C-alpha cells in the first residue's frame, strides 16, 4: 500500500514538474519576443532619424571637406565610429556612420549602423542612402551658380590681415569656386555656431535650419561680403558670373527687429540698413547706382517700428525696372545692445534661436513674351511683377554683394549702402528660375527625390 502510494505520488509529481517546466519555458519566452518587437520598432525610428541627420551632414560641403581627405576622385570614405553609450538615443546606440563618395560628387552615400539593446535582447539595423549632391545648387558646375553656406570659421581675420594672409574667404559649395570674401571687422569670427537650449537647459550646438551649423553675422556697420564675377571653375563656358534671362536669388536671414541704434562705434543707423543680396548693374554710372541688375533688400520705414518694406528688384536690359514691394514685419531680435546710449556695444543675442529663419527668394524668367519677376518669403510666393517683351536682366560685371548695396563711393556715401543688420545663412544664385515648388523645397530643406539614387532603410 505504502509502495503504491509512493509510486502514485512520484507519478503525480513528475507530471506536475513537467507541466511547470513547460509553463516556465513558455512564459520565459514571451518577454524576449515582446522586447525584440519593441526594440525593432524603436530601432527603425532611430535608424531613420540617424540616417536623416547623416544625410543632412552630407549637405555641407565644408563638413565634407573637414572629414573627407583627398581629391574627390575615385572611392573615398570617412567612417565615424562610436563607442557604445557615446551616441545613445533611447535604447539604441549609433555604432558608426559612413560617408563616401563613389567616383564623383554625383554618387554620394551615407550608411548608418545602429545597435539596439534592452533587457538582454540585442538587435542591429543598417540603413543607407545614395544620392547626387543634395541641394539644387550644390555641386552644380554651371555658370552663374553660386551657393555660400557660411560654414567656415574665419578666425581672427584682423590678425591675419596684419600678416597679409587672407583668412576671409568663404567657400562656394556649387563647385564653381566663386568664393565670397568677408569685409569689415569681426573680433573672433564672423561666422558663428548655432546653439539651442536642450532639455536640461544646456546650450548645445545644433542645426539652425537649412542644413547648416553656422551662420554669418552682419553688424550693420561695416560687415559685408563680395563675390567677384570670376569665370566658373572647370567650366567650358567663358562668361563670367552674371545675371541672365533666367535665374534665382535666395538666402536665409534673420533681420534684426529693432535695428542698430547709436553705439560706441556709430550713430543711429536704424534707417540705413537692410540689404540682403545685391547684384549691381553699372557700377560706374551714377544714374544706374540704385538700379541693381537684381536685388533683395529690406527698407526701414519707421525707426521705431519693426514694420518696413521688402523689395525685390530686377533692372531689365532697357533700364526699366521690375519691382515687387511688400509690407514686411521683422520678427527676430538678433543683436543685443550692451551698455548705455552711445557708449553701448552690440553682441549676438543667443535668444535669437527661438525665432525661425526666414528665407527670401527672387526668381526671374523670360517666357511667353514676358519678363517675369517673382518674389518669395519662406518659400511662399508673395508677389509678382512682369513686363511685356522677353528681356534679360541688365548685364552685370561686378559680381554680387551680400549685406550691403554695391555703390560706387564716388557717387555715394557709406550710409547709402544700407548695411545689413542681422544674421544670414545659405545664400546664393542659380542659373534658372526655380518653380514655386522648388522654392518651397529649398526653404523646407527637402531633397528632390530625383536626386536620390537609392534608399535602404
Amino acid at each position, binding site marked *: 500500500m505504502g509502495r503504491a502510494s509512493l509510486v*502514485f505520488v512520484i507519478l503525480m509529481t513528475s507530471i506536475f514538474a513537467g507541466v511547470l517546466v513547460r509553463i516556465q519555458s513558455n512564459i520565459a519566452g*514571451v518577454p524576449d519576443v515582446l522586447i525584440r518587437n519593441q526594440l525593432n520598432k524603436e530601432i527603425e525610428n532611430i535608424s531613420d532619424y540617424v540616417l536623416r541627420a547623416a544625410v543632412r551632414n552630407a549637405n555641407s560641403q565644408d563638413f565634407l571637406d573637414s572629414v573627407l581627405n583627398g581629391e574627390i576622385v575615385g572611392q573615398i570614405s570617412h567612417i565615424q565610429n562610436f563607442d557604445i553609450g557615446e551616441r545613445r538615443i533611447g535604447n539604441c546606440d549609433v555604432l558608426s556612420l559612413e560617408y563616401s563618395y563613389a567616383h564623383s560628387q554625383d554618387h554620394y552615400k551615407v550608411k548608418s549602423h545602429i545597435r539596439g539593446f534592452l533587457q538582454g535582447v540585442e538587435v542591429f539595423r543598417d540603413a543607407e542612402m545614395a544620392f547626387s549632391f543634395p541641394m539644387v545648387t550644390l555641386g552644380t558646375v554651371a555658370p552663374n551658380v553660386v551657393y555660400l553656406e557660411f560654414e567656415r570659421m574665419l578666425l581672427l581675420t584682423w590678425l591675419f590681415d596684419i600678416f597679409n594672409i587672407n583668412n576671409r574667404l568663404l567657400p562656394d559649395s556649387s563647385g564653381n569656386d566663386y568664393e565670397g570674401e568677408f569685409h569689415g571687422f569681426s573680433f573672433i569670427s564672423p561666422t558663428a555656431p548655432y546653439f539651442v537650449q536642450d532639455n536640461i537647459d544646456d546650450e548645445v550646438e545644433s542645426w539652425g535650419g537649412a542644413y547648416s551649423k553656422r551662420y554669418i553675422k552682419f553688424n550693420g556697420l561695416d560687415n559685408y561680403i563680395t563675390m567677384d564675377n570670376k569665370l566658373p571653375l572647370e567650366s567650358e563656358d567663358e562668361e563670367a558670373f552674371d545675371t541672365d534671362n533666367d535665374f534665382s536669388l535666395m538666402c536665409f536671414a534673420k533681420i534684426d527687429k529693432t535695428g542698430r541704434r547709436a553705439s560706441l562705434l556709430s550713430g543711429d543707423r536704424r534707417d540705413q540698413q537692410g540689404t540682403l543680396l545685391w547684384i549691381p548693374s553699372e557700377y560706374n554710372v551714377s544714374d544706374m547706382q540704385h538700379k541693381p541688375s537684381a536685388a533683395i533688400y529690406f527698407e526701414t520705414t519707421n525707426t521705431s517700428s519693426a514694420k518696413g518694406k521688402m523689395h525685390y528688384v530686377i533692372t531689365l536690359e532697357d533700364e526699366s525696372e521690375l519691382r515687387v514691394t511688400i509690407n514686411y514685419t521683422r520678427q527676430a531680435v538678433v543683436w543685443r545692445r550692451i551698455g548705455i546710449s552711445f557708449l553701448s556695444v552690440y553682441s549676438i543675442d543667443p535668444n535669437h534661436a527661438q525665432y525661425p529663419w526666414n528665407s527670401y527668394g527672387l526668381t526671374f524668367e523670360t517666357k511667353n513674351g514676358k519678363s517675369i519677376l517673382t518674389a518669395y518669403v519662406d518659400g511662399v510666393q508673395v508677389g509678382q511683377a512682369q513686363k511685356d517683351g522677353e528681356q534679360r536682366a541688365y548685364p552685370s560685371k561686378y559680381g554680387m554683394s551680400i549685406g550691403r548695396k554695391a555703390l560706387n563711393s564716388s557717387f555715394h556715401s557709406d550710409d547709402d549702402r544700407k548695411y545689413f543688420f542681422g544674421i544670414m545663412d545659405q545664400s546664393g544664385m542659380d542659373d534658372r528660375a526655380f518653380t514655386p515648388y522648388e522654392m518651397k523645397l529649398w526653404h523646407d530643406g527637402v531633397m528632390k527625390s530625383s536626386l536620390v539614387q537609392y*534608399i*535602404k532603410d
Partner: protein
Amino acid sequence: MGVLLDVLGSVIIGATLLLMMITFTLQVQETAARIYYTSSMIDHMDNAARNINHIFAMAGVGVAIDDKDICLEASDSRILFQTYWDCEGDTLSNDLHEIEITLADLGYADGKVIEIRQDGSVIMPLGHIQYIEDIDMNYFDFDDNATTTPADIVSAEILLTFRRDSPWRSDQPLRSNLQLKCFFMNAYLQKGNWE
C-alpha cells in the same frame, strides 16, 4: 480497519488536492502557451511584413525606369522584378538581379511558405517565410490605380493569411490575416513628379 480507512481517506484527499493543483497548473500552462503563441505569431507576422516590405522597397534600384521595366511578371500569388540591389548580401551590386516573391507548397505540415528568390535561389533565411496559408496580391500604378500590367506596377496591396496549429487542437488551426501595402520605394523616387 480504522487505519485503512484513514489511509484511504488521506489518499483520496491528497489525490484530489493534487488533481486540483494539476488542473490549475494545466490552465496556467495553456494560458502561457496561448500568450507565447500569440506573441510569437505577432513577431513572426511582423518580421514577415518587414522582410516583404524591404524586398519590395529595393525593387528597381539602379534600373533606369525610362529604359527598362522594373516589374516583369505579376499574378495573385507571385511577382518578379529587377534590381541592382543584391538582396542576398543586402548590398548594392553591379549585376542586375531578378527577385521573385512567390507562394510555394513544400508539403510542410505547418502550411505553405513564401519564398523570396534571387536569380532562382531562395535567399536564406530572409526568403523562407513559414506558416502561410494564402497570399493575395493586388497591384497599383504610380497614380494608385489598380493595374495588372507588370510595367506599370509600383506598389502592391498584399493580403497574407497565416495559419498555425492550435497549441491544443491541431485540427482547429488558428488563422491570422495581415494586410500591407508595399511600394517600389526606389522606383517611386525616380518617378517623382516635382514640377
